[in-house]
């Protein structure tokens, strides 16, 4: 019983930590991509303009 409870605790901790990492990294990576795309688009179009 105690072993099962400890395993469940570790699993919750693991899920929490990896979830937190995903929450931090995913939006920042996507945001960087979005800004790079917007910047590239602006530069190309303004050059053509």
């Amino acid at each position, binding site marked *: 019983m105690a072993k099962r409870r400890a395993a469940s605790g570790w699993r919750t901790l693991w*899920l*929490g930590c*990896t*979830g*937190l990492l*995903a*929450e*931090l990294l*995913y*939006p*920042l990576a*996507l*945001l960087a991509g*979005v*800004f790079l*795309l*917007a*910047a590239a*688009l*602006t*530069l190309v*179009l*303004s050059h053509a303009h």
Partner: protein
Amino acid sequence: MLIKPRLEDHKIVGFYLGTVLVGLGAAMGIPLLTALCFREWNPLLDYSLSGAITLSLGFALRLSCFTKKEIGWLHGLTVAALSWLVAALMAALPLYFSGGFGSYLDALFEAMNALATAGFSLVRDLDHLAVAHNMWRHLLMLLGGQGIVVIALSMLVRAGAGGFKLYAGEGRDERILPNILHTARFICLISSLFLVLGTAVLALILWSEGLPPVKALLHGLWLFMAGFHTGGFTPQTQSILYYHSWRLELALLGLIILGIFNFHLHYAVLSGDKKELRRNIELNIFFLSVLLGAFLVFWALIQRQVYPGLLAMFRKGSFLLISAHTSTGYTTLYPAQLFREWGQLALLALMTAMSLGGSVCSTAGGIKILRLGLIGKALRQDVQRLLLPDNAVLAEKYHHIKDAFLNDKIVRGAALITLLYLAVFLLGAVAGVCYGYPFFAALFESISATSNTGLSCGIINPALPAGLKIIYLLQIWAGRLEFIAIFGLLAYGWSCWRGK
């Protein structure tokens, strides 16, 4: 027939209002302790006196209005609307006593901005404000971002069926866990976790940038409180420009993006469902909207050659766009610069971003991107209906934590709130024009106030006419509560007057 509220109904409202005031009075203990630690004797007196007044009023209401009657929807909405007003009135007391504000109205404006996480400030000399007062201003943002009623619920109210009615009155209508008290406590737990992590990261960055350790810790804590709750207060007049640190700007960007996450989304991801980040309709629309906004801002800045280098332009443009879109209001430039140098196209992109805001059930303001997504899906469904035979059955799905089907009730709710926001944006702008300000600037300020952003192009300052201060204050209050609680309060007042 309109039923007049009985004494028991007033007692319910009074009891919960008293509960919120007790919570607020207890919260004044934090700046009081800060004043004690930093040996600021005048602020110590300010918070002792204000705390005593708020706690006395709160306990008096709780004792005199104790009732066993169950809370109803109208009570919930009335309590939520009144709580924010009365809490701001009480929270303004120590700020007024500080002598840092020109009048009680200015202190009230500051307190409402803090609670509603708007971020306009009317302090006369912010750079020399006492540590305790800065702690209070930023703490109010934390309390307001979490929802003062949610906090009072999780700390001071026993579990009951009526809890959800109070919770929904604050503009949050999604239960994360079946029990509303557990939901409120989960929100507080998530925020506490981020408080520790976020403060540590920000303090380390500020320390490495050369701030003394204690100042770095305090500024890190305050910037977290205001940043994660998309408030936008800073302890310096120059906002984030004061620090001149790209590392701080990057950390704050990450923090405020986390702040606009729906608490439901936090729960899903932290429980192991990481795919939700990719599938969530709100996040997808948010990043699409940022892409369009960034393109417009960069285009405007390139055309006007505002900055000498491309890197400086992208850095300033990206930071301000995210700050506006998340309704935070942090800035790395002066208000006058924004209006004079950035041009109307960039301002238009910022105004659109401010209007859209963040996620529902988060600390962000604005119309909320989920509503925009739902209206867009409904529009697509209507166009599809035109192209298909009359007897065709159409079902539109959207993914927000779980798959759900679009129905008329959901779309009607989203469209109604969106329309109300648009109407208030316009009314606020008209009020600004009536006071002699140019339409574009007045519209910018009105959108910024209603969406609780706090970016300013210079209109809101201590010399603003009192009438316009009151109008903006009401806009901030109504925008934070997403109007429905205000209608609840008006309906309650109307039934008191005309009911039988």
